[in-house]
Each structure stands twice: as structure tokens, then as C-alpha cells.
């Protein structure tokens, strides 16, 4: 189970409304490499892991991704909450505004709603962990694109840099977990009873 902590993992205080940035950053909320996909991917895959280290790392990184989901939602919210209709139209957010107002909806930058097709559980721990490694790299790449697009806004840049760094750390931990699982699966089996097949 989870207990909510009434604080952000990293502080976010955005002073300027900028719906244009919100329109692209929302991809890390509900896009293919976003935090919602990441948390669901790891928290779903953890059930099938063959060793304690892999279960633990998927559980704990999956939990941290929920904190990141809240951070990205906060960025989107703070960038749009005081937006005027003119700003929304100018940002090309009029279609979004029609269906969601300035609520936060899980979708990609291109407007595709979140789908579970973004994640996989393959019934194969090696395949799953390889996907997780790729997911962290893709998320890092997306944050780097967003950092390029937000270079003039330090209030947004700072938490995005933090989130990018977390992807790097998670990649490292998943690599170590994968090595452990590979070693375990490659281990020779010795049977004490010669009647065993």
C-alpha cells in the first residue's frame, strides 16, 4: 500500500504562466515515455520478478515515478492555471481547452490520450528489465528535448533537470538488477535426489 506525503519530491514554484510549455511538458505526464507509463510499467512487472533485488527495485522505482507524476502534473498546472483565453489560443491549446479546460489530462504532446499500450509485461523477466532500461533512456531523451524547449524559463528548467537526473540513476539500478537476474537464471542446478528429472 501507499501513504501520501503532503510534499513534492522536489520544489516547484513557477511564476510565469506559459501554456506553450505546458503543451509539450504534458507528454511526461501521459505520453509514451511519461511518468504514468513508467510507474504502471514497473509496478505491474514487479509481480513476476524471480529475485528479491529485482522485486525491490521495481517496487521502489515504481513508487518514485508516482512522485514524478505529481511533479509533472504540478508543472503543467502551474503553467496553465492563470492562462487567458488569448494565451491558450496562441499556444494551440484551444482543442485541449475544449475537452479539459485547464485540468491536467494524461496525454502526449501531440494530444494522444494515455493508453496501456505504452507499457509491456511479457512474462519474461529479462525482456521486462530490458524494456525498463530502454524506458529510462527514452524518458531521459524526452527530458533533454523539453530542457531545450524551456531554456528561457529557469523555474521550469530546474525541476526538469532534476527529473532527467533521476532517469540516469534509475537506468543504473535497473542495469544492476538485470545482471542479478541473468546470473540467477544462468546458475547451474544441482539436485540432491538422483531420481529427479
Amino acid at each position, binding site marked *: 500500500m501507499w*501513504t501520501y506525503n503532503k*510534499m513534492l519530491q522536489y*520544489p516547484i514554484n513557477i511564476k510565469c504562466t506559459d501554456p506553450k510549455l505546458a503543451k509539450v511538458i504534458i507528454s511526461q505526464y501521459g505520453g509514451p515515455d511519461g511518468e504514468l507509463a513508467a510507474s504502471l510499467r514497473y509496478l505491474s512487472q514487479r509481480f513476476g520478478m524471480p529475485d528479491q533485488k529485482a522485486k525491490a527495485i521495481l517496487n*521502489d522505482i515504481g513508487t518514485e515515478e508516482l512522485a514524478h507524476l505529481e511533479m509533472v*502534473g504540478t508543472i503543467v498546472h502551474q503553467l496553465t492555471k492563470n492562462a487567458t483565453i488569448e494565451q491558450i489560443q496562441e499556444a494551440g491549446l484551444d482543442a485541449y481547452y475544449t475537452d479539459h479546460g485547464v485540468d491536467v489530462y494524461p496525454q502526449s504532446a501531440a494530444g494522444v490520450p494515455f493508453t496501456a499500450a505504452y507499457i509491456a509485461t511479457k512474462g519474461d523477466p529479462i525482456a521486462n528489465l530490458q524494456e525498463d532500461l530502454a524506458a529510462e533512456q527514452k524518458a531521459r531523451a524526452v527530458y533533454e528535448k523539453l530542457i531545450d524547449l524551456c531554456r528561457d524559463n529557469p523555474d521550469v528548467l530546474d525541476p526538469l533537470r532534476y527529473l532527467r537526473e533521476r532517469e540516469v540513476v534509475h537506468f543504473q539500478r535497473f542495469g544492476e538488477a538485470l545482471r542479478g537476474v541473468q546470473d540467477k537464471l544462468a546458475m547451474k542446478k544441482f539436485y540432491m535426489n538422483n531420481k529427479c528429472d
Partner: protein
Amino acid sequence: MFVNENRNCCCNNDCEAEERKIDCEKKEELLQNIRCYEFAVNELALYLDTHPEDKKALCLHKKYCNELKNLRDMYQKVYGPLTITYPCNKWRWLEEPWPWEGGDK
């Protein structure tokens, strides 16, 4: 069967009477400190998941967990609960702004 309609609590957990100094700077400083320790504990936990035998990391984890607990107790006593597991006489969960509202500087 009668339902007890008296909803006034008579326990002695007197957090309501706690003097509430709304000193924003102090509050933010304390919260930022808590956040630093939360981060250190989380980072060490992820590391320990794949390096459970690392004695130095384990020792640091223990040290930071204790510091974190002290800071959280100190904060919650004055500025209200960080989780719903913190007991109060008055329901203070609604009083402080939510993290996404920028109350979390």
C-alpha cells in the same frame, strides 16, 4: 442500539493547543531540510536494493532515517500533518496548501 452521538474527542493529544507560529521562512527551511533527507533516504534505498551488503550505505541510511524522523516530527507538531497517519485533535489536513498549489516553496 444507540449510537454515541458525542463526537468530541477526549484524548490528550494536544496538537491543537500547540503554538502555531506562522513563520513562513522557518517553515520553508524546515520543509526543504526534510526534502533533502527524504531524497537521501530514497537514493540510498534504491542503491541498497541492488547492493544490500554495503555496510557503509546501510549505516548512512540508518543515520538519515533517524534525522528525517526527527525533522518530520518537529515540522508536523508546528505546521500540521505531512501524512494522514499523524494524529491531531483538530483535522488540520485541510489547512495547509497542497503541494501543487505552490505552497511548497
